[in-house]
């Protein structure tokens, strides 16, 4: 098989632009879901919160300002085709793109040593999850994760007997505890199965899907629908100010796990669901 080369320079530039775009503009699908919620919200306060949110999106895009001041941790889900040959370190190039985006886009420096609080000064390192796949392309999906929603995300090892009902209960409990603090209306990434870290990575991958999309797996799709309906009965509402739009989308992924385990991760994402994709 012929190996296809990819230049570091091209990747760094594409990553920088991806991060800048994600921080200044939301994907059309996210905006569509927010607009629909604004039209249909029954709580007057929740409706005002959504009006402010839509106005924020407009101002950010027009003036090239970050949608939210928490420009977050940048999470890269990378899929490297086996036909692509790189003569550089992938993580290093992704971090260079992140560094340049931080500088050029006036992003907040939000990354620090967990114990000394010493800021790294350039938002590096990003979080990189690498999968080796077939084909001759490099695909990078980005998620910008602010701490408001990430801090309220949880992983739990359920027992197999707890099953789907246990999963639902865990999601509802997580969203309920998060309340207005995680900046609803939320997007919920749900990872089911695997082990401790696998379920969390699955939840991230679920969030990286097109916003509001349904799983191709029928049983998972049904679970997504049911959870969305129940979460929106909690009453938390936009901005936590009450209403029927606590969540705009539940997206789940699953993987086989141990017969004695049911690992579940609930990864919350705020309404400012920033992300995007590049394929090189």
């Amino acid at each position: 098989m012929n190996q296809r080369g990819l230049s570091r320079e091209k990747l760094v530039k594409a990553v920088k632009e991806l991060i800048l775009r994600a921080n200044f503009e939301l994907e059309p699908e996210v905006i569509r879901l927010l607009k629909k919620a604004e039209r249909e919200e029954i709580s007057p306060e929740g409706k005002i919160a959504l009006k402010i949110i839509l106005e924020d999106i407009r101002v950010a895009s027009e003036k090239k300002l970050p949608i939210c001041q928490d420009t977050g941790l940048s999470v890269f889900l990378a899929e490297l085709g086996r036909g692509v040959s790189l003569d550089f370190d992938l993580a290093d190039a992704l971090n260079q793109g992140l560094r340049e985006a931080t500088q050029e886009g006036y992003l907040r420096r939000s990354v620090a040593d967990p114990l000394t609080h010493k800021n790294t000064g350039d938002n590096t390192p990003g979080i990189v999850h690498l999968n080796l796949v077939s084909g001759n392309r490099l695909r990078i999906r980005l998620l910008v994760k602010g701490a408001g929603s990430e801090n309220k995300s949880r992983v739990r090892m359920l027992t197999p007997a707890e099953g789907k009902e246990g999963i639902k209960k865990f999601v509802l409990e997580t969203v309920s505890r998060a309340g207005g603090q995680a900046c609803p209306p939320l997007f919920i990434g749900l990872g089911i199965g695997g082990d401790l870290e696998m379920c969390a990575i699955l939840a991230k991958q679920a969030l990286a899907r097109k916003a509001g999309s349904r799983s191709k797996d029928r049983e998972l799709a049904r679970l997504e629908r049911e959870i969305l309906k129940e979460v929106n009965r909690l009453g938390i509402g936009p901005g936590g100010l009450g209403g029927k739009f606590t969540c705009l989308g539940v997206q789940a992924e699953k993987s086989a796990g141990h017969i004695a385990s049911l690992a579940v991760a609930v990864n919350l994402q705020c309404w400012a669901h920033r992300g995007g994709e590049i394929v090189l």
Partner: protein
Amino acid sequence: MKLEQARRIQTPLTAGVCHSLKAGDWVLLSGRVYTARDQAHRRMADAIDQGKRLPFSLQGELIYYTGPTPARPGRVIGSAGPTTSSRMDQYLEKILGLGVLATIGKGERSKEAREVFQKFNALYLTAIGGAGAYLSERIKKSRVRLWPDLGPEAVYELEVEDFPVLVAYDLSGNDYFERCRDKYRKGVE
């Protein structure tokens, strides 16, 4: 209701104004607001513990929990929306002890924090989380007052104009978050 019809309040606050505001009221704030988040709270608390005085008084002032993005050239400030308030709960008693009459942030706080607000006759106001670009347009002046080494976590003195917030906890102990959840919840949890 339209936000433009909300009550306009001048800061710093007075005890009378605080008493007149009720949980669920929208308010448009204009005037001075100080920012502080995690690291600035930590330093303020340390200073208080060591018996030191801050270089300026916080009597009647508002504290806004935010860490803005750097300002682009020609702009007063970068995006500057509220951060999660509950992280500041552990410092609340000390900060309100300095005479602060209201804090602005986002989201529910602990039951203990709610009691501290009542004890000090102070308000908790919530802004819309994530709306950093929109809210930055309502900030007319900005300068660092304390600890520039903290970068976005420094204490800034801001001048805001028609800055929209909702009264979350009022002086009678009403909690808007609790009330609205009860109102819109439909038989789950």
